[in-house]
């Protein structure tokens, strides 16, 4: 990545002085919501609302123009319509503003006239060597410095997953799902039309960003896909990249030479090629969040051999199905493990001693469940354990026991409780603080396992 783009993106993600051009006092307007979001988000820098007619907004003095704002501005957030935005970018350029974030839509997505306007926007930004985020962007968030510059005011726990999204709506879907899952976010960027800064630039930036350990991407499509794939290869060698691609119906055929009609849609190209370069391809927003949560909490797995401990067979069968499809192995238990299990639940227990290990009624007691988890983790043929338990009115969840077993053997553990979040939110926090992701469905647990195995296998692999 060019040194300059990196430096410019740093001033966009970590600004010290931010101007909100078009800030207003009406909660109906984007300009109000962005300003409120930055102000109430706890931004550690200075924020200056700019509007020609207002005196004060939310108790803050308003500047009549960007020229009146004291001192150099790192980032101007422009909350004006598409035409006025172009003028504002010009003013910012003249004043030496480093970067602009343009929320307005109405550009290339609106046909020829919009495209022409966007070309003017790009030319203006380039004339002053300014970095331009968007246009047509939901905005950006940097939880390091509490910088919340989106027109949907949010508060998200800080974590190490950063999200690049082409769609505001899908960005919000993923953020809210992350809140449900107890997954913290480090940075969010709504890339919008990617006029001057593309997916590959943001990816490379987050690849270098110390606060980001996992990168999630929602993509509709990009003409820059080749550059993105090459950038992803380098980034995925350092940290996991998980991507959800929309547009699966084969609208356009890329492989027409064989007269194969709809044999090949663009989704297949994206899926195969991004996988080729180490990206983990998620199937849904749900899958994306489950995978990112797991990757952000778990240490890499040594290999793909998975142990499953349960007291009810069904979820383990669902998992075995899904995991084998995703290249994982459910190996048989070793003799030493079977002996250990017999020591715990009796010499001749009324259960089959195999992997997945279904301890049935013998696994209800928390202590026993924890000991069994330990026995499976001790098995040298198992690299990662999934522990399945069902929420019960009178029996406690075995979270502390699972944590203890994980600490003793050091291998990654994924917990899966058949429960709703209200029934296990405290346990979720306890487990996740201890580096054990908790899921409430076997499918989500599998997404985490599959992503971890993918990354452990592909991570660090750079082709010659």
């Amino acid at each position, binding site marked *: 990545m060019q040194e300059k783009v990196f430096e410019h993106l740093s001033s966009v993600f970590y600004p010290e002085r931010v101007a909100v051009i078009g800030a207003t006092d009406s909660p109906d307007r984007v300009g109000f919501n962005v300003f409120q979001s930055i102000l109430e988000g706890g931004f550690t820098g200075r924020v200056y609302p700019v509007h020609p007619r207002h005196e004060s907004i939310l108790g803050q003095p308003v500047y009549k123009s960007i020229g009146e704002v004291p001192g150099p501005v790192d980032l101007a957030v422009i909350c004006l319509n598409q035409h006025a935005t172009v003028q504002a970018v010009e003013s910012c350029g003249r004043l030496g503003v480093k970067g602009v974030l343009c929320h307005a839509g109405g550009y290339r997505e609106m046909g020829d006239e919009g495209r022409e306007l966007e070309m003017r926007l790009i030319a203006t930004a380039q004339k002053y060597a300014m970095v331009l985020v968007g246009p047509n962007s939901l905005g950006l968030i940097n939880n390091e410095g509490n910088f919340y510059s989106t027109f949907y005011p949010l508060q998200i726990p800080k974590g190490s997953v950063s999200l690049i999204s082409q769609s505001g709506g899908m960005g919000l879907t993923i953020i809210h799902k992350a809140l449900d899952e107890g997954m913290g976010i480090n940075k969010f960027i709504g890339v919008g039309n990617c006029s001057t800064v593309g997916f590959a630039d943001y990816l490379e930036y987050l690849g270098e960003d110390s606060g980001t350990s996992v990168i999630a991407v929602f993509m509709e*499509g*990009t*003409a*820059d*896909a*080749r*550059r993105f*794939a090459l950038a992803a290869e380098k980034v995925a060698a350092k940290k996991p990249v998980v991507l959800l691609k929309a547009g699966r119906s084969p609208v356009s055929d*890329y*492989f*027409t*030479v*064989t*007269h*194969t*009609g*709809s*044999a*090949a849609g*663009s989704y*297949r*190209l994206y899926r*195969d*090629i991004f996988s*080729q*370069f180490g990206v983990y391809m998620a199937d849904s927003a749900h899958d994306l969040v489950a995978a990112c949560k797991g990757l952000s909490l778990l240490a890499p797995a040594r290999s793909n051999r998975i142990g499953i401990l349960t007291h009810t067979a069904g979820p383990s069968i669902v998992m075995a199905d899904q995991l084998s499809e995703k290249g994982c192995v459910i190996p048989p238990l070793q003799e030493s493990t079977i002996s250990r299990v017999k020591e715990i639940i009796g010499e001749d227990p009324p259960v089959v001693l195999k992997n997945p290990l279904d301890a049935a009624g013998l696994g209800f007691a928390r202590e026993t469940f924890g000991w069994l988890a330990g026995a499976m983790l001790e098995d040298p043929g198992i690299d990662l354990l999934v522990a399945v338990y069902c929420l019960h009115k009178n029996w406690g969840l075995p979270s502390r026991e699972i944590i203890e077993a994980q600490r003793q053997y050091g291998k990654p553990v994924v917990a899966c409780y058949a429960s709703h979040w209200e029934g296990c939110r405290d346990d979720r926090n306890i487990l996740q603080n201890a580096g054990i992701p908790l899921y409430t469905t076997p499918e989500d647990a599998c997404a985490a396992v599959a992503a971890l195995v993918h990354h452990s296998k592909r991570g660090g692999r750079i*082709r*010659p």
Partner: protein
Amino acid sequence: MSINIIMEGARSEGRQVLTEDESKQILALAGIPSTPCRVVESPGEAARAAGEMGFPVALKVRSTIITHKSDVGGVYLNLDCPEQVSRAFNDMREKVRGLDPGAGATVQPMAPPGVEVIIGMTTDSHFGPVMAFGLGGAAVEVLGDLSFRMAPITTADALEMIHSIKGIALLKGYRGRPGADLTGLADMLAKVSQLVTSYPGIREIDLNPVIAHPGGSLAADARIVISEYRSQTLR
């Protein structure tokens, strides 16, 4: 003859779609195996060429106008004797008279039987040169059983690509049938990738079918499409 000279020759005639014999000459120069392909202009010449090659042979229309040979019924397979060859030539001339009165033919030996696969390369607007691999026939036409990779690819990528199609079991051999030489097939994919990387003027390659045998693979048909102008570099 060099690859650039073959491409320039077609460009000088205003063509972007190379004929099968031109395409196979390029393959040969790139070390990619294909069935030999002789250009003939008359029924007698066709029969003589067939006799020299050994039966059975295939006869295909050769025209710079007709670029999809089988669409016009211009492909005759498994011809067993000189009479069949000359009859096929005349029959073909009759069929394509309205499209290209000057059409000739190529005669080529039939590839020994094996599993039909497709090796392709196309220039995608988002990814640039992309490799495709799949089983031939209904598997690709009905099921779309293809895998894709961005070029250039390594032999290891190619092997992964081959193993990621659903029909891999057919290539590995089944019910006592011997499997195809997958390493050789992967090598062929990697060579096509090298070819398009070295010659960005190549926009599409369609080797359909490639016949995969236990002892190696070869392209029984080939179609190469080049850019209109000489210098087209990778984005």
